[in-house]
């Protein structure tokens, strides 16, 4: 029964994460213009950093990592929008931007995750 409750909280967290992504992503896109999908990049990097913090601070707490990592944080970040926006950039013949969108998201995401892990471990 406890597992069912964990899953429920995870799903509700993912819904909340999606709403946060909607709000933050649209706000960033509005501020930084339509030339590049900054909103998705910001959301994904922020999500990776937060997950890194959690991973560093509580590497052995499987329940917390599941509920937050698979819930609010995973719902907050998105892979599909990244793919669609990359495709749209490539179709608009903006190949450099499309390339940077993929490579930049991946390298910044990894860096943010590793940095978060380091900070989280240092803080505990």
């Amino acid at each position, binding site marked *: 029964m406890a597992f069912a409750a964990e899953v429920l909280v995870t799903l509700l967290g993912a819904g909340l994460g999606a709403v946060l*992504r909607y709000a933050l992503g649209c706000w960033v896109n509005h501020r930084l213009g339509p030339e590049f999908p900054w909103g998705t990049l910001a959301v994904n990097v922020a999500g990776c950093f937060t997950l890194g913090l959690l991973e560093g601070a509580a590497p052995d707490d499987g329940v917390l990592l599941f509920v937050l990592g698979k819930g609010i944080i995973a719902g907050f970040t998105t*892979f599909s929008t990244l793919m669609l926006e990359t495709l749209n950039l490539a179709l608009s013949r903006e190949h450099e931007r499309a390339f940077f969108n993929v490579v930049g998201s991946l390298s910044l995401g990894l860096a943010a*995750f590793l940095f978060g892990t380091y900070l989280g471990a240092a803080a505990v």
Partner: protein
Amino acid sequence: MAQEPNGQAASAPRATPIVVAQATLRPQSELECERLIRLSHRLGIASATAYRGLEDGEGPIFLMLLDEADLLEGFLPELRRAAPEAPLSVIREEAVHVSPSDFLRGGVLEPKPFRAEARHAAWVFAGGALGAGARLLLEGVGSYAIPFHALFPFGTMAANVAGSFAIAIFGTLLFERFVEERERMFWVLGFLGSLTTFSSYVQQTAQGWEASPFLSAIYGGSSIVLGLLAAVLGLRLTRRLL
């Protein structure tokens, strides 16, 4: 560009003749039209307006671009490159604006202010929770059925690739046909956004590196490649079926 009108007494308000050009393109699809409008905005063309011909409500699409002639003609090569097959015609005329000479440059492209709307947020929330359910299901099935799932998380990968395929279908439908805002909020921002995940993907790639750099690199690379391929496939398929 702005000249003093010849032979006229300086009268208020000052009339500033400028040469305006209007380019009309015929994009081959609404998707192409959308791309050209995006490009026009990026270039800073003063006005880009799309409209349909009148035949049966499904007539050809026209895209009308308006700007000062010299500026617009400078943009034409790039527009041609972006849509080599779209017929293009240009007219120029001298227009006398009783207004500041930077009339065409001012304020036209100001984006609308953004406001998150509560009723949208409700649909995003519902879609997000259900999308996460589908992702957990795929990950659960993957880790149950595949023994080395921890080393190579097929379940997450399946969710990410399937979501990329579906979002390309929705993206194309958004451009080519009408998709209601509510449906976009639920399916695209909610369900598909939450079905797919970037943070878990990065986490798995980073942690997999410690166990097996080879598998981790394959996982990281193939997720992106398959995701992009799935999106291209979704787009092509939808455009063919429409």
